[in-house]
């Protein structure tokens, strides 16, 4: 008998939800065949059968939360599923096959290794506080002997919850559903998005500065070279690569926009890994274009394309999502004219791109029609001063309006 184990979920991911079993107990399965899909805060992943045989037991049903190492189910090796037999003559064989697939007669393998850590030990007072306030005992950090949870620990956990401005309110009795309403459980990804956005709002001193950029120059450049570009690189020349380059240029001039707060310190990052917001059916994800400063425009376009495809197909790996230093979000693709993006914590800046709209502009005393885009920079005022934020945004604007600046690094 082989255990189907929850695999390691990656850095900082401690649990996953069983999303979907593609086989049911009793089914014949092949080694490496996908049996079950798990959803984590960040990605979904698939777990394959450890061996040929019969899926004899499903121990974690859909919707159950599991930790790495937890047993999802068991495969009885070499067994064959008990197919319903029309032929009575072979009836004697069926129970035999069933017996093979019945896990009970076999001794249970030792479980502890796969079990989550020992249950937390709570003092009687801490138990009462947890019970009365619906605190998760496992989520209270114990400072007592051998990690026991003291009353003080429970009270501190309670206070921390009260202090968090709007924690997802402890789901009290769910409200009644009216005839024309529908209740749908949030996916884990949706819950994570909700939580992280709120955390970012709670933690940062966030505000937004605006500017507008005349797209004439970059559009002309693009029109001039788009065919040659595509022919040579096999990828379309879009605006995103210009913005990524312009952002990197700005970050190099104003390093605090590329920094993050850690306790009472500021960590400056001398690498430029740009998170690019991508909308998918499941929700918004922000895969990372790494070392964007060292990439060509073509390289950036290819990378964004590849990440976007992965995101749509739900194939993003955790590594694809971790470690960004700044985020670009393009609300323009949906037609947004202006918005205030929320930071992607722990980053300190996010650039909002918008719809290109022809508007009358005054150029050299004349009113002319120009393709304009509003730019928004939301930033963490704890790290970035207003001057830095505006300087950064003006750098981006200048680089887009006059792309030759990027070439000359001015």
């Amino acid at each position, binding site marked *: 008998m082989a255990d189907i184990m929850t695999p390691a979920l990656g850095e900082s991911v401690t649990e996953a939800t069983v999303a979907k079993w593609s086989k049911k107990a009793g089914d014949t399965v092949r080694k490496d065949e996908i049996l079950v899909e798990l959803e984590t805060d960040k990605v979904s992943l698939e777990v394959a059968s450890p061996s040929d045989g019969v899926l004899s037991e499903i121990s974690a049903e859909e919707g159950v939360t599991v930790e790495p190492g937890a047993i999802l189910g068991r495969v009885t090796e070499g067994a064959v599923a008990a197919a319903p037999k029309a032929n009575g003559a072979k009836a004697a064989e069926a129970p035999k096959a069933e017996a093979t697939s019945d896990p009970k007669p076999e001794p249970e393998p030792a479980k502890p290794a796969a079990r989550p850590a020992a249950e937390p030990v709570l*003092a*009687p*007072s*801490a138990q*009462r506080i947890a019970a009365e306030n619906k605190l998760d005992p496992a989520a209270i950090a114990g*400072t*007592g*002997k051998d990690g*026991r949870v*003291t*009353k*003080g620990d429970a*009270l*501190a956990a309670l206070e921390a919850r009260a202090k968090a401005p709007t924690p997802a309110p402890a789901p009290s009795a769910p409200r009644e559903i009216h005839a024309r309403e529908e209740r749908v459980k949030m996916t884990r990804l949706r819950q994570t998005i909700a939580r992280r956005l709120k955390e970012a709002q709670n933690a940062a001193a966030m505000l937004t500065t605006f500017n507008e950029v005349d797209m004439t120059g970059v559009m002309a450049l693009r029109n001039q070279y788009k065919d040659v570009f595509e022919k040579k690189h096999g990828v379309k020349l879009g605006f995103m690569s210009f913005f990524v380059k312009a952002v990197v240029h700005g970050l190099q001039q104003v390093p605090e926009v590329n920094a993050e707060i850690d306790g009472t310190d500021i960590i400056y990052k001398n690498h430029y890994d740009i998170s690019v917001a991508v909308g998918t059916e499941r929700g918004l994800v922000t895969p990372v274009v790494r070392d964007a400063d060292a990439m060509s425009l073509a390289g950036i376009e290819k990378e964004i394309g590849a990440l976007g495809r992965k995101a749509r197909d739900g194939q993003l790996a955790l590594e694809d999502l971790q470690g960004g230093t700044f985020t670009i979000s393009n609300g323009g693709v949906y037609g947004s004219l202006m918005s205030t993006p929320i930071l992607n914590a722990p980053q300190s800046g996010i650039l909002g791109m918008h719809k290109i709209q022809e508007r009358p502009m005054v150029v050299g005393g004349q009113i002319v029609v120009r393709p304009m885009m509003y730019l928004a920079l939301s930033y963490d005022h704890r790290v970035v001063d207003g001057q830095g934020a505006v300087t950064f945004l003006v750098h981006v604007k200048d680089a887009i309006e006059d792309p030759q600046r990027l070439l000359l690094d001015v």
Partner: protein
Amino acid sequence: MADTPSYDVVIIGGGPGGYNAGIRAGQLGLKAAVVEMRATLGGTCLNVGCMPSKALLHASELFAAAGSEFAELGIDVSPKLNLPQMMKQKGESVGALTKGIEFLFKKNKVDWIKGAGKISGPGQVEVTSENGTVTTLAAKDIVIATGSEPSPLAGVEVDQKRVVDSTGALSLSEVPGHLVVIGAGIIGLELGSVWRRLGAKVTVVEFLDRITPGMDAEMAKAFQRSLTKQGIAFKLSSKVTGAKTTKTGVSLTYEPVAGGPAETLDADYVLLAIGRRPFTDNLGLENVGIERDKRGFIPTDHWKTSAEGVWAIGDVTLGPMLAHKAEEEAVACIETLAGKAGHVSYGLIPSVIYTSPEVAWVGKTEEELKADGRAYKVGKFPFSANSRAKINHETEGFAKVLADAVTDEVLGAHLIGPNVSEMIGEYCVAMEFRAASEDVARTCHPHPTRSEALRQAAMGVEGWTMQA
């Protein structure tokens, strides 16, 4: 030196620190020797301290109860004191206990080297036996556990005849007509109580304006009131200036600390009990470069002295001079030198006075919490509201629990009343586990017992005492 016996650890001193260190070393498989110059093991505690005093306290308490309390229970007796027998049973109990340690040494393969130990150099202990022969022991580690001795007082010479220290006061051959005790600390009050119960008039002279320094002031006040009721007289804020001894008694002079005319007390015996000092002379500390502090204590860092391979535990180090503190350090010191994780919770060393009523406490006093600026809550419960105490006609005293105002963690427990020495351990465990008062309040206690008062006091911290 053809045959220098060689040990992993040599412990100088066979009291509670030394003998427990020996036993623990033996348990951990170390080759250990304990050097003790007394004819019996056990040190001050077993021979001339805790144990014999408890023997006399117990016997004298029953004697006093038989005389004054039995009648109320319907038992008519007229007790007659047999002091020689009382002393004899004390000696027998003590003898049995010291033999018990010898047995434990054999069981754990610890050698008792009889004689006076002295560090003659790094890794060397020289033992001089009673008849003058000198043996040298080689030791990888040396533990100093030589304990303490009564502090002297200028102008009052202890002759162990009329002016005695604690040792002498445990073996008086008669009940004094008037015993004057210098010092209202634990030792003075315990021994004063013994002789008071056996019939002596007892006067206690104390330099400070309160008795039992270190005890929570509210407890000390209640305690003094109780002792006064038993007939012990107190002269506080008084400084003893001299003692003139004659064949039949002592004339003790004292004057107010604040200044004023001197007064004289005529006593049959004087007990000098102003405290104890570390016993660190003639230990050869200079041979390994250890310097003592001004008061003679050996400075240590986690029982390590300034000299490599030399450790010190118990009364020779700073901290309360208590057998159980020494015992705790013995275990931690040996475990540390054996490479394990020795630990002592210094904030949780309980104190007990075995008088009647007893006083027992652990953790912080209210005065300490105030000095620390720590916000705390108080829960109290009197034994007069405790059913068992009431049934036993022993309603004196109360329990007091101090807990952090925010976290409710128990910070101190103070008990006064019969048998509280046996009950304080509950709070020692609770506090070692950093329990909140509510944890004690939510723990089932047997009924009817005096221990219920401890729970009710804990309830009182958060205002839900149920039985008063």
